[in-house]
């Protein structure tokens, strides 16, 4: 239970980090999708159930603070969590190329769905060409670093709890 709580806190921290990153370290006003990479990390490491549940919760957070149609990020992150969870035993999550490619493709997937839903529900596109070019590349470049940091954090948490076998 404590582990799930920690995962929740990590989601919250990465959400805040994403908001701060856009504010302080943007490239042409665009920030990376840190939350998306964290969901990919959890899904690849802990399977589809954790992936999709945490995807749903973090999507809900993002929906509240993003300008997209409410429910879009929930929908996207749930699918991403599920797909990555299903791939958890099929791909090497430690491989940097895998981390980069998955992040790149899934950012494009996210942008595509947001574009589609905004066209359907808002009859207007909220996606700019900057989103299409910068966001996926920025995210995939940062992905290995985020994976590494998450590894270190999880390792430290395991040591703190001293219940490695339970995690």
């Amino acid at each position: 239970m404590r582990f799930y709580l920690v995962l929740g806190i990590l989601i919250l921290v990465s959400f805040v980090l994403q908001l701060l990153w856009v504010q302080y370290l943007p490239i042409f006003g665009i920030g990376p999708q840190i939350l998306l990479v964290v969901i990919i990390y959890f899904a690849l490491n802990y399977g589809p159930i954790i992936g999709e549940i945490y995807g749903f919760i973090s999507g809900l957070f993002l929906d509240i603070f993003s300008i997209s149609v409410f429910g879009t990020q929930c929908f996207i992150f749930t699918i991403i969590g599920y797909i990555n969870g299903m791939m958890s035993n099929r791909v090497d999550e430690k491989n940097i190329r895998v981390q980069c490619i998955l992040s790149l493709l899934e950012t494009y997937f996210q942008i595509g769905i947001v574009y589609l839903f905004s066209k359907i529900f808002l009859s207007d596109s909220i996606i700019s060409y900057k989103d299409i070019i910068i966001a996926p590349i920025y995210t995939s470049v940062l992905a290995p670093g985020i994976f590494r940091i998450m590894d270190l954090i999880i390792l430290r948490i395991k040591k703190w709890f001293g219940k490695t076998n339970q995690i």
Partner: protein
Amino acid sequence: MKWKYIPEHKPTLILIILLCISISLLAFNLTKKIWTLRYFVYYVFNPVPELALKIIDNSKYLSENLLSIVKLKEENRELKERLNKLLFMETEYNEVITENKRLKELLELKKGLTYDIISARVISHDPFNWFRAITIDKGHKDGIVVDAPVVTVIDYQIALVGKTVIVDENTTRILLLTDTLLAVPAKVLRTGDNCLIQGNGTPKLILDYLLQESVINIGDEIVTSGIGEIYPSGIPIGIVTDIKTGEEEYFKHAIVKPKVAINRISEVFILKKVK
């Protein structure tokens, strides 16, 4: 059979449930409600009118209680703005009253004089000596001539400032009372004794050529005597602040504080003789 099937496809089942919830959220069209709520949260932290306007525009998505908070805050801000405006207007009103009094005073002076009055604004002081000269924004084009007396109104009283010395087309340089080059024929108002007022490059003036037998006291008012061609009689110059006797055989000296404070002159009036 059924129970065995569900655990096997548990992730897929959860996915379907979560996707259904997501699609419901999309279908309920909560976007505007969430946006309005978000604007409200932003407004709480940063109450700017633009956000208030957005909230009021989408008032149907927000509860009446939350809306009343925004409305009250906006009303309060508007009232404060109006109060500031009124305070500013009050200051302006006081300024107009002061100016009105000053102009009335000047009108009174004009009645008793055979002079035309030209008003002008001070545009600069002499950069090397604050007590030497000032420049005004009127010149030859406005009818100003050389050697015309210049006065101002300070605290509802007329006071001598100096005289015009260099007149250009649009500006005029005025030699101040306090400059060493200016000497004004004057008299002690109380006794009528004639004397001469000279500047010495400081904020004080020197009263000279007052006979030893003349009685002069500290606090006596000094006005122009009207001797000579330039200054009309009776224009206040200053107040005696110190008397020096015994230094010379025939004359007394005194220190006079000018009525006009050099650093407070912003508007002057040039007296032009009517031919």
